[in-house]
């Protein structure tokens, strides 16, 4: 009997010692609802998350460049069959890459993160006194801008997309596609509203953002976040895509009158543009204001990536140790695109010698290995931390969405469309001044005013000259396809392309995976 009592005692102690707490284990791998949206740091993690997802959405499968540059663009692909299909606008070909790129889920991750942020941020405001009203205003403006930007981006790719403005957490409801005009109108008005609240600078005593933003310095934020002028620059794109050229002038004017008075923007010369530690390199020790709106992969923060950049598509021998580039600009195309003399981006003399080699320090240009089988498009080549080491193909170039040259040429385009040819010419010449300023040997002319001005007899009509200039200037920056669509819409003289525009062939097909999940989504008619 004694033994039984003893045993029961042992039993009881063991059982009571292990209280219910055993089963309350908080996962160290995720953050639960109760531990989030409480503090200033949560707000920061949330807004950076929206930026991070935006970057991921654009970088995924090198989408930004495949949508913008590869599709019916300047590039050819020597061996990649999936890219060949994109180049030929054969977008429903059976390749995994194409199916991934036709899936819009990753863009909606940004939308959902933004919606969640906008719904939940008042909780942080209520709980953490360190989170000021101004901080919230600026955060909300950025998040609203990013959401609108993503809708704009999606509307350009798929046309009609479901416009969803609530996170609908847990009760996800299938939605049909919203007319693209409504989506674009939303994007424009939303961006405009956001732009009003956005500061010119962060952590630099801006009236709309006094003090240090999240206690970080101006350098840290420069080039990383959307600013007021960045928002207007993107607004110009939104307006131009819709053909609202009056609005384009309104938005671009804002940027082009304030860029050096209220903000520290400047035009970028060719050598900085093509340097491996130049415009596309986000240097956390310097100001990166010239990246007017960019999503950076910052070397110092271990953001450098093997994929998610133009370099992984374009670079090969002799720039990096890869035999054949995924895409390249064929010689004939280079010669026909860059056929003007004095162009610092590509200078070829009468003997056929190229004087603007991407690897040259003194006369840098867009291309290298011009005489080889595959000329290498090496305008953007931020290898590792902005060095020129060919043995390891990790890159840290920013996804640069707009810059001052872009805004200037957009205004030129708007002026030209609206018949203000003189103003358009001035803007075009602003760009020509920094590009057509080299001699036959590729050396920069000594005088800043010594450049080849626009001449309709040589460069053709103003519209044509502006779009050709865009083609040259923004090669490899994910603009070409959209520029081409705008150009064709303005010119209306290419029946084949007009048929493509009218039948929705300028949009991507919607992924089979999406169609299988959501019965309300219909395929773009062109791809049925």
């Amino acid at each position, binding site marked *: 009997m004694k033994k039984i009592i003893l045993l029961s005692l042992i039993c009881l102690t063991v059982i009571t010692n292990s209280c219910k707490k*055993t089963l309350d284990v908080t996962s160290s791998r995720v953050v639960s609802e109760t531990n989030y949206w409480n503090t200033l740091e949560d707000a920061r993690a949330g807004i950076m998350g929206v930026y991070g997802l935006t970057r991921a959405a654009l970088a995924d499968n090198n989408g930004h460049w495949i949508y913008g540059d590869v599709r019916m663009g300047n590039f050819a692909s020597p061996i990649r069959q999936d890219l060949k299909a994109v180049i030929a606008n054969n977008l429903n070909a059976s390749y995994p890459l194409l199916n991934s790129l036709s899936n819009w889920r990753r863009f909606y991750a940004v939308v959902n993160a933004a919606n969640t942020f906008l719904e939940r941020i008042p909780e942080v405001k209520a709980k953490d006194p360190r989170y000021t009203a101004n901080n919230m205003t600026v955060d909300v403006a950025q998040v609203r801008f990013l959401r609108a930007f993503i809708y704009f981006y999606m509307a350009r790719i798929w046309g009609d997309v479901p416009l969803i403005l609530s996170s609908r957490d847990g009760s996800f409801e299938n939605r049909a596609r919203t007319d693209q005009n409504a989506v674009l109108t939303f994007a424009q008005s939303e961006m405009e509203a956001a732009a009003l609240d956005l500061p010119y600078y962060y952590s630099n005593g801006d009236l709309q953002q006094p003090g240090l933003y999240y206690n970080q310095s101006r350098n840290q934020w420069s080039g990383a976040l959307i600013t007021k002028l960045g928002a207007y620059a993107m607004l110009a794109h939104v307006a131009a895509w819709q053909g609202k050229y009056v609005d384009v002038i309104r938005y671009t004017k804002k940027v082009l009158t304030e860029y050096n008075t209220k903000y520290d923007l400047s035009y970028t010369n060719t050598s900085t543009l093509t340097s491996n530690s130049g415009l596309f390199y986000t240097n956390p020790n310097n100001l990166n204001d010239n990246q007017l709106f960019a999503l950076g992969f910052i070397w110092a923060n271990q953001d450098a990536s093997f994929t998610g950049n133009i370099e992984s598509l374009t670079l090969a021998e002799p720039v990096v140790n890869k035999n054949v580039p995924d895409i390249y600009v064929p010689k004939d195309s280079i010669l026909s695109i860059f056929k003007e003399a004095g162009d610092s981006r590509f200078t070829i003399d009468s003997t056929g010698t190229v004087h603007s080699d991407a690897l040259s320090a003194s006369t840098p240009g867009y291309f290298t290995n011009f005489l080889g089988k595959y000329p290498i498009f090496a305008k953007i080549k931020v290898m590792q931390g902005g060095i020129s080491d060919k043995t390891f193909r990790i890159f840290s170039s920013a996804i640069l969405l707009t810059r001052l040259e872009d805004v200037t040429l957009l205004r030129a385009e708007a002026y030209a469309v609206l018949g203000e040819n003189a103003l358009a010419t001035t803007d075009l010449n602003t760009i020509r001044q920094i590009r057509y300023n080299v001699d036959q040997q590729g050396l920069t002319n000594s005088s800043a005013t010594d450049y080849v001005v626009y001449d309709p007899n040589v460069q053709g009509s103003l519209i044509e000259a502006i779009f050709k200039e865009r083609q040259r200037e923004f090669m490899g920056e994910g603009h070409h396809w959209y520029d081409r669509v705008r150009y064709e819409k303005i010119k209306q003289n290419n029946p084949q392309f007009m048929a493509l525009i009218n039948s929705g062939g300028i949009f991507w097909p919607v992924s089979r995976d999406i169609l299988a999940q959501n019965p309300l989504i219909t395929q773009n008619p062109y791809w049925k």
Partner: protein
Amino acid sequence: MRIIAIITFLGVLCTTTYSFGDPAMSARVSNHTKTKGRILLKGTARVGRDTTRKDTTKMDSSVGIKPPANTIGRRLESKSNVLDPVSLSTFPAISLQQYLKGNAAGVYVNEQSGEPGSIQNMFVHGTSQPLLSARDVYATQPLVVLDGVPLIGDHPYAFDIQQYQYNRIGPATNLLSIINMPNIESIRVLKGLDATAIYGPKAANGVIVITSKGATLKRRITFDSYAGVVTPNAVTTINGSFENKFRQQFYKKYAANGAFTQDDSYPMFLSDSLNNAFYGPSNWNDLYYKSMGIYSVNASISGGDERANFNFQLGDTKSGGVGDNTSMDRYNARFLLNMKPLNWFTFSALVNANRMIRDRNKNIRDRLAQVNYLPDLSTPLAPNKVNYANYLAQFNNGFDDNKNNVVNGYAKFGIDLGKFKFVTTYNIDYNEGYRDIFYPKTLLQGANYASNYFGYNDRTTIDNVATYEWAPNADNKFEFTGGYVLQYDFSRYTYAYAYKGSNDFIKLNLLNSDPNKSNYLTPTVFQPQLVYKFLDHTKGNTMSVYGKVDYLLKDKYTFSVTLRGDGSSTQQPTDRWFYSPVFGAGWDMKKEFLADNSSVSELRLHASAGRMGRYENFDNYSQGPQYTAFIGFTGNLISPGYDGIATLTRPYTAGYVPYGLKWAYTDQANLGIDASFLNNRLAVSVDGYYKHDKNMLLGVPSAAEYGYTSVIRNGMAIRNTGFDATVTGVIFPSTNKFSWTTSINMNFNRNTLTALPGGLKQVTINDANGNARLLQVGKSVDSYWLLTNNGIYNTDGEVPVANGKAMTYNGITMRTGDPKWADLNGDNQITDADRTLKGHALPTVAGGWSNSFGYQKWTLRLDFYYNLGRQLLNQQMANRFDFYNREGLNDINSVKEITFWEKRGDYSKYPIYNPASAVAPYQANQDLFLENANFVKLRTLQLGYDLTSVIKKKSSNVNRFYVYGSVNNVFTLTKYTGQDPELADYTGYDTGYGIQIPRTYTLGVKVDF
């Protein structure tokens, strides 16, 4: 050297211990050991005798605390559950899976590679999950209980940071390689809930209970060893000329001018027929396929008296692979001590320590997946021996060290008051793995790579069991069992890798170590921006209470009821506990009806039905809606933050986790019969089962417009039904000069998906290899989703036209040279709607057939292993024909291994499609590449001779002396045209990465003193 050292050591140990022998003590305990120490070599002893009828536990002469015998409950178990470790131990296996393969009805073992120590999977009664990723496989593995210690495996959470999931980071060694078969007393495979219920929710996929030899009262020494050689099968090698000819037939047919498009470029390595590296002799196989010596040495000693006794065992096993110089070494030591300070109190402690060292393969794919960086892949390894030797030599400047230490053991306190017994056990299983890598610059196009991994998994169990036996009279016997179990699982790893060290001489990622300097802890040779560090851990605790009553009526009827409650920290707080009942009943029909009938020796029926929770391995589901730091994208999963600041967003890629997730559970029932006739000369055991796993979690692809890849939902149900059968016949009994016993076991399993969350009828999910899999209610989850191939369109005119439109594939018009895929829904478009579910990646019928012949002191064994009703998708062949698309992709799928230069498969089977067509004519997912993978293998051919009587004349201390010679994996009969129908992973796609399962020749000896 190592063998000699070990043998010497063991020899010294034996002789010294032996000299301390005390004959009086042995005499004193002899009443406990009825078999007088002759417990070993049942395998040889059973020849011609029906030993399958014996309950091995009764043969157990060991002492110490044993799990409650539960003698009544045992009556409900199928007789076919028990395996014979003695015959298993002569098989030169390194892992438990290899031992079990073909030997246990209802256990299917997937040995995807002959590389020793690589991961192998087991499925008891089919799969309870669609096998789409390593996570699913982990969730379907049976629980292995070694000496009462439930073992923990490598948690799959580490895959979250891996772009390529071929191998888990770290040593990725099969942790079930620690089972040292010569030292095993018994193995039981528990399949039904009646037997598995007391092991709880982690046992929902079945339990394999392994008991090592215990301590003995009589001094006993065993010595067990084999040595042998593994030899490769012959292969046919090919060179650039072969490949060129193969490709040229496509060019001849479809590209008259030698190129499909302007930009087309024929691969460099095939362009130059004067290049001796590619066009010369293809003799790489001399360096890749090699014979290798293997051995195993095991010795044990046990002894003591009734108050204190022990068992000590040492072993060393080296297992070898025939491909790529792969091998594994295992050292183990085990010490068991029992003490009985009071008559009613026993203390018992066990430590089982193992070390495993593994030489892994040098596959380019696996290496690049580890490195996560793809150098230029346009030129493959050349098939020439000289070139290949140069490549292999580069590895000498680096290292790839894989080590595992596994320690498990227990401390047990047993109180025995006769009818009332109480045992409390503190169990621990701890395994740790190290992998240290350095690849020199030459292997990665100028960038070197260093990586260090340390990870461990730890399972601590506090297990209390009380039993009470009550027999009010001779007709009624009760056994009451109550248990209370706490289990703590913890897994953790630290991992770092770095690229581009400044040179190849410093092979470690060294850090500055002066804490007073500003550069403290920054790397010295690797750039800090290229050093990636990871740290992760996960936890799961469970708490279980159960009660069990077993009742035996008139020695004929058995009843058993188990009720249990299980709480798990990985379940949401609102549904933390799961309560479940299990019922069992047995009926001894021999005693009921045929007590006097001598032709029927045994006839028992048993049945059980019940429910048990299924343990969730991932702790994040318990948190409900959640946030993660993941902002990566395809090709870069490890983006650390934005602008140097950490982020938190919803788990868009992993899937939305809602509130209200509930326990998944399994409903099982079985009905079995054990019968034996003709004086036990024919024994039959048949067990029909019904296993329905319900309410399981599935990431349902949905909410894409809210950013999610999927929403995690309860409600998936998968049913496995079938039967296990074992038939043993004693054709000639051992009383004859010539004896023959034959035994066949089989499992027939049918897998059906019965429900999907939210009443969905089907969903499409991509598996880890990117293949789309359709899960359709009413179909099995291991089927392939394929287009049906009916030949080729030889001209554009053959393409069917409907309403003026030619047939399309996903919108692309079909043309000459495209495959004639069946348009099942008749809409003149080939889409996913025209794919059908075909074939099974897991066999519908699997088992083994073993034969034992005896002639005087000779024994001959022939063991076969077979799979029927299984199909493989020959992806390797698909890849070869899809050369045109693969050549250009610089991705992990376009890697060509050295084995690219081996001819596998039948090239003539496949039509010559236009490889450049946009319809992807050689996509793997069509029935063109689906092949019948049925096979029969002769796994063991063994000849043994019992020398006991000869040796006994010289030394009377020897109880047993048995020598044998074996050939294993002798031949395979199959129609499969690929390498070997076994060599495919759980998805059933044969990628060609499996290394040959080698033919092994061994000579062995088993000695007992």
